[in-house]
Structure formats: structure tokens, C-alpha cells
């Protein structure tokens, strides 16, 4: 018999004898691989679609000049077009058109068809007659836009313009990317109908052959007003990718966590299987198998699990990705890629990457048990009956303490490339450190448990106290799953609680009206503003202009919120963090910046910042920091009267209304509808906004909850499989106890008690570890990933219910394992070799 044949026989024996645990370990690896592959595939599909969209819509443009959401002076276009190195320039007006009776918007681009033809031909519509391209009442829609709106060529398209309607006839289609929802109209019509006269949003530029793009870019930059930037088209896509990176990385980390849990289950499976086969391995070693061969054999076992899990995982991942795209969308419900409908493609690179990770995770799980098996002295190990000695190698507390110290040392380090690398590292160190300390922690907790009076239960405690190694090995996966579930629960509760408190503070009025967002086609002009303020039942009205401005060329834009507010009492309206700073006379006017803005641009209270407003850099004094959960890239609040003075733009997007005593919101809603037409303005009470916001929040975290539930389920199944294996291995012990007078029920109770005690240990450690990890999630990972701060809120009732449910499930699991193990003739087991 060759060594290979021996290996095959050992592997067959191992998998055959541990079918349940082998299956659980394989499935857990499959799950980790599936999640990683699915999340990666969905993200890549979204980014690829977005990049392709940018590329197609930029056409042959070498450079793109882009300004704030409300556009910039079209005179800039004239100056650029005249530059000698410019072969062609195409001005574009971009509008997010509100659609009556639709929740979402349609991006409408106003283009000069003749200029667009030589720079961005995909923006030139294809219709029955070329003349339609010049007609102000004609629109061309991408196939995706036609499909989503349920329209066809020849139909009409109504979009909101201010508080009125602009009607276009759909004259043809566009060669836009398959999933992109976009429409094109004549630029003059767009300027006129959407209140952008004399303004453009972007200019696509094609250079003359041989012109150096960087030189021309620098020349163009000198012509641009503040807040208008020039960039290569690929930089736009890269910026979008960067904006969503933190979110994507967080999801990737969740997938890796699933893989880590899988690795722990492989560890449990292999550790227990190795212990069970100590005598067999000792025999093989005695017969001439080298340590190295034994390690290779056991790592091959782990790798076999990994290969099976990875194969299954990639197939499941592909199915999962298509389901996720269909149910949650390309951003898993987070709202980054609205308007994109990406197609799913199999990625061999990604599949290979995650399959390799799956196999490596399984090998890593098999590593320690393999080393232990190889280290064991064959002479000692061949004498069965002292399995616990296999776990003595895990008794040293130094590696565990070292991991915890390392976690403390790195947790407060700043982010790397906008990612909380050290935060994640600290969490991983805390997890690994705690798991390494588990035997000691378990012993410490078990020693402190009072000795029960009932002999069966006392025996259970004696058994665990004397041999905590095997039990804690089975607990590794459940401790990790509990810790992560608890930490996520605390983080999500903290986030939700803080969001609810923030909403309460940000929504002091009785009623809110919205005509449209930053680049929307909806707005209110001064007459309409005055009409709203004087509606019957309205006691007070405050208005806000919302814009998107570019503070730095290489950074995504930030929101500028020009609000009616009393400077002296700004804290009443803004969710300020810390005390406001008073702005002295002679200082630049006040601006209140969000945490994200402060982090990105290092703006602290009292500092002077420059904001591009009306094409000029305007100085403001940072009068305070505020918490903003609505805009991840940052926001700045300034007084609206200052904004109007600087720009002459007296239009607004939003209104906050305080009702007169006795007035009802419904009456005001009816008055608004009567004045502006039904559904022209979005009308909401704070309660409605709060409910919708929290529903969106819950939907966003639905994926997280699902992953948590899966992790817990896997942990429990793993625990059950381990209990089952341990119980089966103790059949002779149960046989002896039956001889000595224990009933089956007493043995069942003993095992249930063991299950409850072991699970309590896992639960206590998991809860404490989860609490510690939640601090890192709340104060480091979220802060550094999304720049959101939040107040810690521990959902005690939820955690208590979770703990009781888990304890009950684990106890039932142990009881079921005991039933299986004590079924049949345990008495006969006494006669088997001990």
C-alpha cells in the first residue's frame, strides 16, 4: 500500500465518519465564497456599467469641463471653443427631470446636435427626420428609459419644470448603453424650459490631433470660474468608484467574515476529527508516516473541504448575484447607482480569487489541528482515553493576549486611502485573540459556575471543567458568529437611534415641501415662494436652495444648502455637534459644515473656508460642525440671504412650514395642490419623512441582517454537528453511566446541561467581544468609512431576547445530539475498546 493509498483511506474514513460536520464545514466555506463572489460581481457590474455609461456619453471627448449643479456661464464655452488646440467642443445642460407620478427622476441632457455629433455622437438622437434634433419640443430616449417609463417613439413625455410641466414628443432613440436611463433634448429648449438660460452644466472637448491633453487642460483651467473643473472622462468614473469604495469594501469585509466563520468551522471539524483519530495517527506514525506526511495529509483534508466548498460557492454566488441585482439593485439598496441596470457577467478572475480564498480559509482552519497531530508523541497518543491532551497546545495565553494588545495599539490609527484598514485589523485581532484565549476564558467561567445539586448536571459541569478544550473548539464558530451579530446589532441600533434623533432635530417644522433636488428640474420662484408663505394656515415658512458644488478638482462635489435661518439661533435648526462658534463683525460670513466636509477638507470651527459660489471663491467662517446622515460626501449650510446676494439666484427647492394654531396639514396640502397642481410638490410631514427614512435605513441593512442570521444559523448547525460528534464519541461513557444507574432521561439532561453551559460560555464571551467590536464599528469603522458619527445605543431587550433564543436553540441542539447518541444500545458500547 503506497503512502497515497494510505492517505486516501484516511481521508475516506475521516469524511465518512464525520459526514454531518464535513457537510456543515463545506457549506460554510461555500457560503463565504458565494457571498464574496456575489458581492464582488454585483459591485463590478455596477461600476462597469457606470464607467461604460460615462465613456459612451462622453464619446470621443478628451476632456470634460464640469460645473455646479445649476450650471455655469455659457460664455466659458465660447472661450474654450476658440482655443486653437480644440477640435470640437460640445456644451451640455444636465437636468434630473422630475416625472409626474414617478418616484425617481430621468436624466435629461440638453445638447447642440451639430456639436455633439463630432464629440459625443451617442447623444445625437436617431429619429424619422433630422429636423427633430433641432425642435425644442422633441426628445430622444435611451431604450432603457423608454422601457422603464413604458413609452414608445411617438408618445409624449411630461417632465416637471419649476412647478409647471414641460411636454416633449418622443421623436426617436439614443445609442446609450443598454442599462442607462437617459433622454436628450435640444440645448436651447433645455435652457429655456428648465430655467438655465445662459448656463451650461458641462462642456465635452475633443482636442486637435497632436495636442497635449495635460497642457490644454492647464490652459482651460485658467479660463474657468471657481467651482468649475476640467478632467479626463475616466477620472469621473474613477471618482464615482472612489465614492462608493468604502461601502463596497464594507460589504466585502462582511463576505470575508462569512469566510472566516467557515474557516472556524473547518477548524472545529478538523480539530475534533484529529482528536478522535489520535490513536490512528499514532499508529500510522509508528508504522512509518513522517510528521510532514501527516501534516500534508491533514491539510489535504482541509483543502478537499475548501475545494468542494469553493466550487459550490462560486455556483451559488453567481445565482445569488443575479438575485441580488434583481431584488436590491446594483448597490444592494444603498442608492449609489440609481439609473443603472447592469448586466451580470461571469468573471473568471473573481471566481478564481474567491475560490482560492475559500481553499486557503479551509487550509488555515486545518492548520492548527494538523500541527497538533504531528506534534503528538505516538507512544502517548496511541493510548486512547486522554483526548484532552490534544488541546493543551492551545493553553498558552500569550498569542491571544498579544492579539488583543495589537488590536488596542492599532485601533485608533487614521484611515488608509479613506478606508478603516486599522479598524478592520483591530476587529480581526480582537476576534482571533479572544478565540485563542477561549480555553482559558471557558475554564475561568466554568470554575465560577456553582456546582449543581443534581448529579447529572454536576457531572456535566465536572466533564466540562476537566476538558474545556473540546467544548471550546466546538464553540469557536458560534463565539465569532455571536460576537459579530451582537456588534452589528449594537452598531445598527446606535446608527438607527442616532438617525431617528437627527431626524427629530432636523425636522422641526410641521410640514415640508420639495420641488426638486440639487440638479432637479423642479424649483420654486420668488412669487411661488411668497404664495406658499401666505397660504392659509401657514404661520411661518423657511426656504432652502440646494446646490452641488465642487470644492476641489479631485474630490466629489459637496452639497451647498442655502437656508433661511436666524444666525443667532442656528443651533435650533441645525444638528450641531459641540458648541457653535460666534462669527465676529468683519469676519467672513458664517457657514456650518457637516462632519464629512470637516473630515474631507480639514475644516474646524473658527477656520475660514472658500466656497465656489456664483463662479467666485467666497470666504466663509466655519461657525460649527453638524451631523449629516443624508449626504456622505459632505454638506455646507449658509444663510440664504447671503447666497442670493452673491448669485442673484432667488429660487428655492425646499420649504419648511410651521402651521398656525388649529390649522391642519391636510388643509395645507390641499391648498398647495390647488395652487400648484397635484403632485407637483412633494408634501410630507416630519412623521412621514421619518418613517420613510427609517424604512430606507432598514432596507439598506436588510442584507446585513440576512448575513447575520446566516452566520448564526451556520454557527448553530456547526455547534450541533460538534455536539453530535462529541456525544457519539462518548457513547461508552453513557453506557457506563447506564450501568451505574443513570436513566436515559438523566443522560439527556446531562448533555442538555452541558450544551447550555457551553453555550452560556460562548454567549458570555460572544456578548463581551461583540460589545467591544461594536465600539470599533461605531467609533472607527463608520466614522472613517462614511464619516458618520453616532451615539452608542445598546439594544438591551433585543440582545436579551437574542441570548435567550440562542441559549434555548443551543440547548435543544445538544439535547437532539444526545438523543441520537443515546439511541440504540449504549450498554453494548461499554464493551468496545475504551
Amino acid at each position: 500500500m503506497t503512502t497515497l493509498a494510505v492517505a486516501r483511506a484516511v481521508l475516506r474514513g475521516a469524511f465518512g465518519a464525520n459526514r454531518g460536520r464535513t457537510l456543515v464545514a463545506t457549506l460554510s466555506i461555500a457560503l463565504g465564497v458565494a457571498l464574496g463572489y456575489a458581492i464582488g460581481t454585483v459591485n463590478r457590474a455596477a461600476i462597469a456599467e457606470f464607467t461604460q455609461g460615462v465613456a459612451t456619453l462622453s464619446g470621443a471627448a478628451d476632456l470634460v469641463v464640469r460645473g455646479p449643479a445649476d450650471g455655469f456661464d455659457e460664455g466659458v464655452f465660447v472661450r474654450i471653443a476658440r482655443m486653437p488646440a480644440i477640435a470640437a467642443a460640445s456644451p451640455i445642460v444636465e437636468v434630473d427631470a422630475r416625472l409626474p407620478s414617478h418616484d425617481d427622476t430621468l436624466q435629461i441632457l440638453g445638447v447642440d446636435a451639430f456639436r455633439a455629433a463630432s464629440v459625443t455622437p451617442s447623444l445625437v438622437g436617431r429619429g424619422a427626420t433630422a429636423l427633430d434634433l433641432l425642435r425644442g419640443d422633441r426628445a430622444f430616449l435611451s431604450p432603457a428609459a423608454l422601457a422603464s417609463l413604458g413609452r414608445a417613439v411617438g408618445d409624449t413625455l411630461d417632465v416637471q419644470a419649476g412647478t409647471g410641466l414641460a411636454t416633449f414628443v418622443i421623436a426617436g432613440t439614443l445609442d446609450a448603453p443598454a442599462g442607462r436611463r437617459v433622454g436628450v433634448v435640444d440645448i436651447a429648449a433645455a435652457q429655456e424650459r428648465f430655467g438655465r438660460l445662459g448656463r451650461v452644466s458641462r462642456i465635452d472637448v475633443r482636442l486637435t490631433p497632436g495636442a497635449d491633453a495635460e497642457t490644454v487642460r492647464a490652459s482651460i483651467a485658467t479660463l474657468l470660474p471657481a467651482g468649475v473643473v476640467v478632467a479626463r472622462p475616466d477620472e469621473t468614473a474613477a471618482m464615482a468608484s472612489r465614492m462608493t469604495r468604502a461601502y463596497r469594501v464594507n460589504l466585502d469585509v462582511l463576505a470575508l467574515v462569512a469566510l472566516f466563520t467557515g474557516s472556524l468551522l473547518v477548524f472545529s471539524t478538523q480539530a475534533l476529527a484529529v482528536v478522535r483519530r489520535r490513536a490512528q495517527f499514532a499508529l500510522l506514525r509508528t508504522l512509518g508516516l513522517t510528521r510532514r506526511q501527516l501534516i500534508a495529509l491533514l491539510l489535504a483534508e482541509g483543502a478537499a473541504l475548501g475545494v468542494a466548498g469553493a466550487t459550490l460557492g462560486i455556483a451559488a454566488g453567481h445565482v445569488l448575484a443575479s438575485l441580488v441585482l434583481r431584488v436590491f439593485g446594483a448597490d444592494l439598496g444603498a442608492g449609489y447607482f440609481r439609473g443603472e441596470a447592469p448586466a451580470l457577467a461571469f468573471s473568471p478572475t473573481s471566481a478564481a480569487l474567491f475560490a482560492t480564498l475559500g481553499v486557503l480559509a479551509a487550509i488555515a482552519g486545518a492548520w492548527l489541528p494538523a500541527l497538533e497531530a504531528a506534534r503528538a508523541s505516538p507512544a502517548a497518543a496511541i493510548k486512547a482515553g486522554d483526548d484532552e491532551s490534544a488541546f493543551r497546545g492551545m493553553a498558552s495565553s500569550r498569542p491571544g493576549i498579544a492579539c488583543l494588545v495589537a488590536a488596542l495599539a492599532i485601533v485608533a490609527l487614521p484611515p488608509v486611502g479613506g478606508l478603516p484598514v486599522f479598524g478592520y485589523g483591530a476587529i480581526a485581532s480582537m476576534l482571533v485573540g479572544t478565540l485563542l484565549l477561549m480555553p482559558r476564558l471557558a475554564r475561568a467561567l466554568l470554575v465560577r459556575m456553582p456546582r449543581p445539586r443534581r448529579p447529572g448536571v454536576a457531572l456535566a459541569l465536572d466533564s466540562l471543567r476537566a476538558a474545556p478544550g473540546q467544548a471550546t473548539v466546538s464553540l469557536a464558530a458560534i463565539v465569532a458568529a455571536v460576537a459579530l451579530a451582537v456588534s452589528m446589532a449594537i452598531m445598527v441600533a446606535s446608527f438607527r437611534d442616532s438617525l431617528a434623533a437627527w431626524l427629530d432635530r432636523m425636522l422641526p417644522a410641521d410640514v415640508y415641501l420639495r420641488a426638486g433636488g440639487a440638479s432637479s428640474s423642479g424649483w420654486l420662484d420668488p412669487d411661488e415662494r411668497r404664495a406658499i408663505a401666505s397660504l392659509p394656515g401657514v404661520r411661518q415658512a423657511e426656504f432652502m436652495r440646494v446646490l452641488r458644488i465642487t470644492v476641489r478638482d479631485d474630490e466629489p462635489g459637496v452639497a451647498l444648502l442655502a437656508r433661511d435661518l436666524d444666525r443667532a439661533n442656528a443651533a435650533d435648526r441645525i444638528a450641531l455637534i459641540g458648541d457653535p462658534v460666534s462669527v465676529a463683525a468683519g469676519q467672513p460670513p458664517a457657514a456650518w459644515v457637516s462632519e464629512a466636509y470637516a473630515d474631507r477638507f480639514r475644516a474646524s470651527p473658527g477656520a475660514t473656508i472658500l466656497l465656489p459660489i456664483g463662479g467666485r471663491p467666497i470666504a466663509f467662517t466655519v461657525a460649527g460642525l453638524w451631523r449629516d446622515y443624508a449626504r456622505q460626501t459632505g454638506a455646507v449650510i449658509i444663510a440664504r440671504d447671503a447666497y442670493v446676494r452673491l448669485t442673484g439666484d432667488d429660487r428655492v427647492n425646499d420649504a419648511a412650514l410651521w402651521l398656525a394654531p388649529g390649522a391642519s396639514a391636510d388643509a395645507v396640502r390641499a391648498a398647495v395642490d390647488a395652487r400648484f397642481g397635484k403632485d407637483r410638490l412633494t408634501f410630507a410631514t416630519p412623521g412621514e419623512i421619518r418613517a420613510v427614512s427609517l424604512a430606507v435605513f432598514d432596507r439598506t441593512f436588510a442584507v446585513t441582517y440576512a448575513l447575520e442570521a446566516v452566520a448564526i444559523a451556520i454557527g448553530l448547525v456547526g455547534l450541533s454537528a460538534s455536539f453530535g460528534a462529541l456525544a457519539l464519541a462518548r457513547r461508552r461513557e453513557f453506557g457506563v453511566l447506564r450501568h451505574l444507574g443513570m436513566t436515559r432521561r438523566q443522560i439527556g439532561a446531562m448533555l442538555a446541561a452541558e450544551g447550555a453551559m457551553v453555550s452560556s460560555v460562548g454567549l458570555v464571551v460572544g456578548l463581551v467581544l461583540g460589545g467591544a467590536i461594536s465600539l470599533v464599528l461605531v467609533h472607527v469603522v463608520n466614522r472613517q468609512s462614511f464619516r458618520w458619527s453616532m451615539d452608542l445605543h445598546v439594544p438591551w431587550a433585543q440582545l436579551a431576547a437574542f441570548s435567550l433564543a440562542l441559549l434555548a436553540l443551543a440547548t435543544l441542539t445538544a439535547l437532539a445530539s444526545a438523543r441520537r447518541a443515546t439511541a440504540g444500545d449504549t450498554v453494548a458500547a461499554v464493551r468496545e475498546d475504551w
Partner: protein
Amino acid sequence: MIRLAGLSRTFPGPPPRPLFAGLDLHVAHGEFVAILGESGSGKSTLLNLIAGLDVPDAGSVVVDGVALSALDDDGRTRFRRERVGFVFQAFHVLPYLTVAQNVALPLALNGVSNAEGDPRVAALLDAVGLGDRAANRPRELSGGELQRVAIARALVHAPAVVLADEPTGNLDPRTAASIVALLRDTVKRHEATVVLVTHSRAAAAVADRVLELRADGLVPAPPA
């Protein structure tokens, strides 16, 4: 003390294999009976029937005045807990308990308090020569010492009957001789009735009476 009448047991197949039929046995109070037999002759099954771990196909088992056929599984378990002690070939002491805890196990199962039980455990450990090993774990003991622990455990709750299944099977001849001698001395001191099944004629030699189990029943064993 032990009365078996018309006892039959067939080992369920396939094919079914009759072990014995119409077997009778009477063991008096305090008597030490050894039963010899070939492998597969049904010696251990006979012990299981006496202990209430198995039920006969026909016949009756009365131990210490209790007819086991009248008891359900829980009843037989309680009977065993209170009135039977076991010594096994492979010792079967629990590896996670100390020597003293192993010996005290039947007391704990019978609800005897530590205050009452500890002196009995100590006395029995002294009696089997392990008074100084009470706190040791089983892995620290030799085979002979482990069997002494098993003997102490079998007697600690003062059972009426001790059943010993090949107690010297895992021991060298010298240790085996000392163990059976110890078993005999100890059970005699505790006035327990003993049924010992074994292959070993040397082990059986210490018994008051030696029987042989054959297909046609129990017969006095011929002298060695």
C-alpha cells in the same frame, strides 16, 4: 439473592442465534460465583440480564427479592443504581473525574450527600490501596490501579450484588491475581454477592463456586 428460572435468550440475527434456553441459577447471599465460558457463549448477556440491562425472551430474574420483569426501564435503572455494582474488563472510569469523584459517582446518583459519602469513599480507597491517589486523574494511574478504582466504585454504595465482567482481561497475570484477591476480600468484607464472568480459570479459582456456561445451561466447571 439471585434466582434465575427458565431463562432463555436468543441473540437477534440475522440469523437469530440462541444463547441459552431454560437456564436456572441460584446464588446465595454473600456467595462468590464465577462463570466460565467460551467467547460468544452469552456470559456478558447473562450479567446484563441479572443487572436488568437486558430482558430475557422467557424466564424470570429475581435479584435481592425484586422480580426484574415487573419493572420498567426506569425501575430497572433505579434497581441497578441502588443494588448493583459493576466491574468491567476495560475499567471504564470517567477520565474527567478524579479518582475520588469516580468512586463517589454511585453515591451521587443515589443522592447521598458529600458529608455522608466522603468518609465511605476514603475508606474504600484505603481498602483498595489508593488512599493517597484520591485527587489523581485516571490518566495518571496504571491498569491495575484503575481496576482498583472500579472495584471501589462497585462497592461504595453497598450494593447487594456485584457483577464483574472479565475484570482481569486487561491485566498481566500478577496484577490480575492481586485484583481478584482484592475483589474477593473486599466483597466478602462488605457481604456482597458476586457473579464474575471470565475466561480465566485462575481468576475463577478464587470463587466459592465455579460454573461453566454451555448451550444446555450452567454446569459445574470441571476442576482445572
